[in-house]
């Protein structure tokens, strides 16, 4: 191996960190670092110099405006990992406290409450059964029976609890004496698990969740691997990725590399017993070896070189302490290295088993609390590197105690900052057999094991989150090597290029020296595509946002050469199990292009991705189609949780009292009819599929446009706009005859007078037509649930024809009138508080719609608004963090 004839100059000092630390926002720009004479100078008149950073790099440009999904979302809804707001205590009082101090306050009580509600059997099982008869939860008075003396009525207690909930966060909140009395009485015996013990466990779990929210190093290395096709074979590679609700399924998916890579056939699938943290792969002798790490298990698979060959599981090991690293040897088939959080490193050979190389719970160079350990291979197949947060050592597997040397130290040797720690080491063997990449939260280093401790390259990467993933794409001789860095929480992706030719051009001395080439380049992240998606309904947008901003979980990339066209495909995996891909194309050295469209910011929904295919590159149309498919599949898989079983036994008797159902003084005929139908439906115990119009003639326009009691022109216009009658509205407005206007005004005044009398619930159902059309529109979106054979009844005028929404247009369905269901509007209609929820649930039953038949609305983009109602009720449950119980 050729060593560079001269290296860039640098000072060398030993000792602890000296430089004042902290993330410097722009530390990576504007520096050459050092220069070196570029070999050819001797004979020429002038010496030529090359910089350590700032040499020209290759031009790679993104082919699309955003990353595109490669695979359809897997079945089963994704459970988001806890967010800070799920764990932290939030109330006005505490926010002030928090602002003053940096320490976060964990919401312990709420989590304990969740546990009691979610797992009542585990929390109170036996005593609950024992006391079952002694607690009465009903509303009515206790009847005088034999059991009266031994039964207590819990309703008041429950009301107290509810009141307490309502006052949550109030500084003057004090416990109701009844509650205090109850808890004092039964704290010692009610719980299945002693409360103190349970609290300890929960607290420990909370602390762990919180620290993993701050920085989750279990994902280090990434859980995505790309197995490239054999040289000269068909362009079909294999994507190895985790999936499923708990990310415990391992998939081997064949992917065809075309303009947009797409899956071929169904994936080989393995179900594992734990969440997959890392997938590592290496190719030895034409065969791929894939190591898979979960917390307590590590497994290895082999994929034979032939395309289409099935992956075969080889061996599994179990560890007592969570494993923190698994790497696959690029030199010898079936060799891996494993590290555990107890500070042990093993060389794992399929043939000979595990060989412990070192066990040391302490960190190497100075004390650091993190139990994270890492290991990788080096240029010598028997020498392994071993890393903790403080640095890297290399040790010889044949004599690990005696033969080792320090490769990297966080300290003065590498010019580190205070607080800097190793985040991810990676062997760069495919680019240069003796080089190593080390990332910290501030910088990225390239090391040469022949010159330990002195980085041959150092650059401040300026990423907002520490780079947990890295991927190397070696360049051909004379070309730059590419390294991709990826962060988890922020989904950042950074492309770096560097030169380091091995067996370099032997004439020029400095040719083989390590140089950073070009400027670093930011690539699209998954969340970046959000702004290019068509406008969504607010709650859909929220769900989509939650899905797309999930932390990244892995990174893979491949270079593709198709004659003169070179391109790079970058895959990114998110914690939700989505794999997105982007293509970068290589541009031969050209004068800098005029500012392209990406210099202008793109407005949401007006992205080039969704432009008409004629005006955009051919790939874009396909990308848009891919998005539509993905969105549709997502809406299908992420449907609400299964129906609640109590729906069938919903009591109608308690819903409305006689007084409620009594109408106001003078309802019009339409209202009367509707009320009748409602009563009929309630008596029959059925449901109303659609509000059929009795008067086939549409009511006069002003009626439809103005909801009762709202008179200002703005609301009218907005209502019209929602119903897509805006143009008509404008026409009316401009061309209304004076007589018509007068008539409208008279009508209004009359209604105003009646408004007082209309404070009952029933009036609201029929008072305005927009709402009516809303309901009919909702029930239009699919065949009726109860009687599938019944021909659909023509919809009301004014409701847009469902299913006609085209691919490129924004959703045409108006938002549901959720205001009707809001507690405020219910309150002002005089519905007692305890019935509001029942009513709301009842209403959501009406608007429920059977699942969309596959393929029936292939081109429909927007989600039927019925879902919004349903998921708005199921939303609060979904957001609850999943704790480790």
């Amino acid at each position, binding site marked *: *191996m*050729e*060593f*560079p*004839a*001269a*290296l*860039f*100059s640098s*000072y*060398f*000092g030993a000792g602890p960190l000296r430089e*004042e630390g*902290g993330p410097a*926002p*722009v*530390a990576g*720009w*504007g*520096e*050459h*670092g050092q*220069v*070196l*004479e570029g070999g050819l100078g001797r004979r020429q008149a*002038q*010496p*030529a*110099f*090359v*910089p350590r950073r*700032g040499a020209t790099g290759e031009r790679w440009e993104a082919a699309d405006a955003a990353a595109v999904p490669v695979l359809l979302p897997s079945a089963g809804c994704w459970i988001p990992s806890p967010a800070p707001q799920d764990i932290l205590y939030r109330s006005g009082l505490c926010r002030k406290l928090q602002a003053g101090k940096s320490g976060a306050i964990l919401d312990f009580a709420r989590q304990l409450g969740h546990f009691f509600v979610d797992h009542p059997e585990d929390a109170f099982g036996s005593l609950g059964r024992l006391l079952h008869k002694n607690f009465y939860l009903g509303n009515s008075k206790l009847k005088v029976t034999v059991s009266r003396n031994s039964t207590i009525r819990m309703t008041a207690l429950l009301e107290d609890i509810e009141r307490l909930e309502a006052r949550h966060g109030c500084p003057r909140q004090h416990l109701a004496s009844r509650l205090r009395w109850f808890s004092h009485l039964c704290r010692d015996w009610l719980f299945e698990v002693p409360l103190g013990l349970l609290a300890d466990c929960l607290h420990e779990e909370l602390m762990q969740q919180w620290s993993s929210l701050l920085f989750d190093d279990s994902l280090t290395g990434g859980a995505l691997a790309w197995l490239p096709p054999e040289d000269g074979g068909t362009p079909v590679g294999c994507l190895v990725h985790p999936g499923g609700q708990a990310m415990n399924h391992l998939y081997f998916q064949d992917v065809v590399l075309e303009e947009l890579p797409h899956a071929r056939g169904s994936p080989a699938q393995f179900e594992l017993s734990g969440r997959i943290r890392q997938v590592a792969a290496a190719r030895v*002798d034409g065969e791929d070896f894939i190591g898979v790490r979960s917390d307590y298990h590590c497994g290895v698979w082999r994929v034979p070189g032939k395309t289409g060959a099935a992956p075969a599981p080889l061996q599994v090991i179990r560890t007592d302490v969570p494993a923190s690293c698994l790497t696959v040897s*690029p*030199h*010898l*088939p079936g060799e891996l290295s494993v590290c555990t959080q107890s500070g042990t490193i093993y060389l794992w050979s399929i043939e000979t088993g595990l060989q412990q190389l070192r066990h040391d719970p302490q960190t190497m160079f100075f004390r650091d609390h993190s139990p994270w350990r890492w290991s990788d291979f080096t*240029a*010598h*197949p*028997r020498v392994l590197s071993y890393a903790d947060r403080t640095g890297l050592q290399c040790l010889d597997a*044949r004599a690990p105690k005696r033969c080792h040397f320090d490769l990297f130290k966080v300290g003065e040797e590498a010019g580190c900052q205070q607080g800097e720690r190793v985040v991810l080491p990676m062997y760069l*063997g495919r680019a240069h*057999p*003796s080089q190593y990449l080390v990332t910290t939260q501030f910088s990225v280093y390239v090391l040469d094991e*022949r*010159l*330990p*401790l*002195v980085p041959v390259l150092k650059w401040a990467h300026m990423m907002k989150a520490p780079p947990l993933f890295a991927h190397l794409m070696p360049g051909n001789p004379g070309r730059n090597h590419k390294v991709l860095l990826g962060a988890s929480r922020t989904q950042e992706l*950074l492309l770096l290029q560097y030169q380091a030719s*091995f067996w370099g051009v032997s004439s020029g001395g400095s040719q083989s020296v390590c140089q950073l080439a070009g*400027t670093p*380049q*930011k690539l699209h992240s998954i969340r970046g595509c959000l702004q290019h998606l068509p406008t969504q309904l607010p709650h859909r947008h929220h769900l989509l946002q939650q899905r797309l901003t999930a932390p990244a979980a892995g990174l893979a990339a491949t270079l593709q050469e198709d004659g003169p066209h070179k391109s790079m495909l970058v895959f990114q995996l998110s914690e939700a199990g989505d794999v997105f891909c982007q293509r970068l194309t290589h541009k031969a050295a050209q*004068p*800098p292009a005029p*500012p392209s469209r*990406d*210099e202008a910011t793109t407005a949401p929904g007006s992205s080039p991705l969704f432009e008409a295919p004629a005006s955009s590159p051919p790939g874009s149309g396909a990308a848009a189609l891919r998005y539509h498919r993905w969105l549709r599949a997502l809406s299908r898989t992420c449907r609400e949780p299964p129906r609640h079983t109590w729906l069938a036994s919903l009591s109608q008797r308690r819903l409305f009292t006689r007084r409620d159902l009594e109408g106001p003084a003078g309802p019009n005929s339409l209202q009367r009819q509707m009320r009748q139908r409602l009563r009929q439906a309630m008596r029959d115990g059925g449901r109303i599929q659609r509000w059929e119009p009795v008067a086939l003639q549409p009511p006069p326009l002003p009626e439809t446009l103005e909801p009762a009691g709202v008179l200002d022109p703005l609301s009218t216009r907005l209502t019209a706009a929602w119903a897509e009658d805006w143009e008509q509205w404008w026409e009316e407005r401009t061309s209304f005859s004076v007589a018509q206007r007068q008539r409208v005004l008279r009508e209004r005044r009359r209604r105003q007078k009646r408004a007082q009398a209309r404070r009952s619930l029933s009036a609201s159902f029929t008072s305005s037509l927009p709402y009516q059309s809303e309901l009919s529109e909702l029930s239009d979106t699919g065949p009726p649930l109860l009687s599938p054979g019944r021909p659909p009844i023509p919809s009301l005028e004014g409701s847009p024809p469902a299913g006609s929404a085209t691919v490129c247009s924004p959703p045409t369905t108006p938002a549901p009138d959720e205001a009707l269901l809001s507690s405020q509007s219910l309150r002002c209609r005089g519905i007692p508080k305890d019935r509001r929820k029942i009513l709301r649930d009842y209403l959501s039953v009406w608007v429920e719609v059977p699942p969309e038949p596959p393929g029936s609305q292939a081109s429909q983009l927007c989600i039927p608004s019925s879902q919004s109602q349903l998921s708005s009720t199921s939303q609060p449950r979904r957001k609850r963090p999943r704790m480790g119980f």
Partner: protein
Amino acid sequence: SSHEHKLNFRKSKEACLSYIQDALLQKQWKRAAEFLTCYVESLEKDYSREHVSPSEMIWRIGTEILWHHSQSSMKEFNCFMEQMKTLGVKRYLKVCLEHVFHLLCNGQIDEAYQNLSLAESWRFGEQTAIQDKEMKLIQAYRGLLDYYSWSKKKNILLEHGEDGFSDLAVEQEMHGYFRKAAVNLKEIIKIPGVWDLFVKCYVDLLEFYGDHNEARQVLNEYAYNSKFPANPNAHVYLYQFLKRQGESKKSLISALKILHDIVPSHELMIDFNTMLQKSKKRKKRRLGLEVIFAALDYAGWKENAKAWSCLARQVKQIVISEKHLDWIKQEWNPRKDWWPAFHFSRYLAKRNWQENKSLSYEKALVAGILLGKDCKYFKYVSHQGCKAQLKRFRVLKKFVNRHNPVCLRISG
């Protein structure tokens, strides 16, 4: 209130910075430049006490933009740099150094030299440790440029010397450059660090003026001082110097032995091996075998035909003479559990045969001797070789078959 005002100002400053950062990372230089003009305002109300001040940020961002902006010129760049130098006292030397680097990379050697001289004369209060280091670097680079001027004059003189006529003025100038260069270069290489370029130039100067002792001392210090990093080049320079001086084989070997100990995979190991193989001493030949085996342990040497032929030659010699078979055995023992998979798999046999016939010949010979005639690598290559009717492969097959009992003794 003023506190709120400060807070708002900081927020908008941060937002602006993040826009700039975004533009830079997407190579939108024009957009970044526009934002930077807004960011300059932050200089006026600099409330921050962070360790990276806005002026440093402006310097870094501005430099980066001017490197890449399609409409920037060297003149503009120089102008910007001059402004940046006056902006912060603490960073003056650093900015100067970076400016010089940029000039050097653009071939403006004379301007760079002027800048270095200016920076060298700069004084401001007491120097910090970092400033001290930067000053030393500035002096060293000036020394380096002086060396290049010296070298230019030397070439002129040598050319003229061929014509048989010498120029006194040029010679005087040359000596002047020598003095200036030597003083500065000598200073920096005393401090622990990687100074390959400076050491090479300084040694070149010393050698020209015949000061071999000083040169030797400098190189020894650079290679063996434990405060310096373990730089393989230091040993290479010493070895090359000793070779130029016509030193004895013994001292050359001892220099390379140390290099072998710190970097067994260095490319000079082939020279070392050939040197040792030629030696009459058994111990040295034994060391030669060790050296070549150790080099071939490394992934970077896997396909190095030269190294494999060195090993093949030596192993063959030993097998033919049937002396020192234990040497091979000793080297082979710690490797026999992983070399077969690492070097002699069937997959590699196929690939080596397709890509490099002579490499596969050498490797097949070694495999045949170390693993016997039934080894997959040897079988595949010799079979292919015989099929292709290549004479030397037939000879190889015969050789291995004849010596198979010996081979078995090694592998057994």
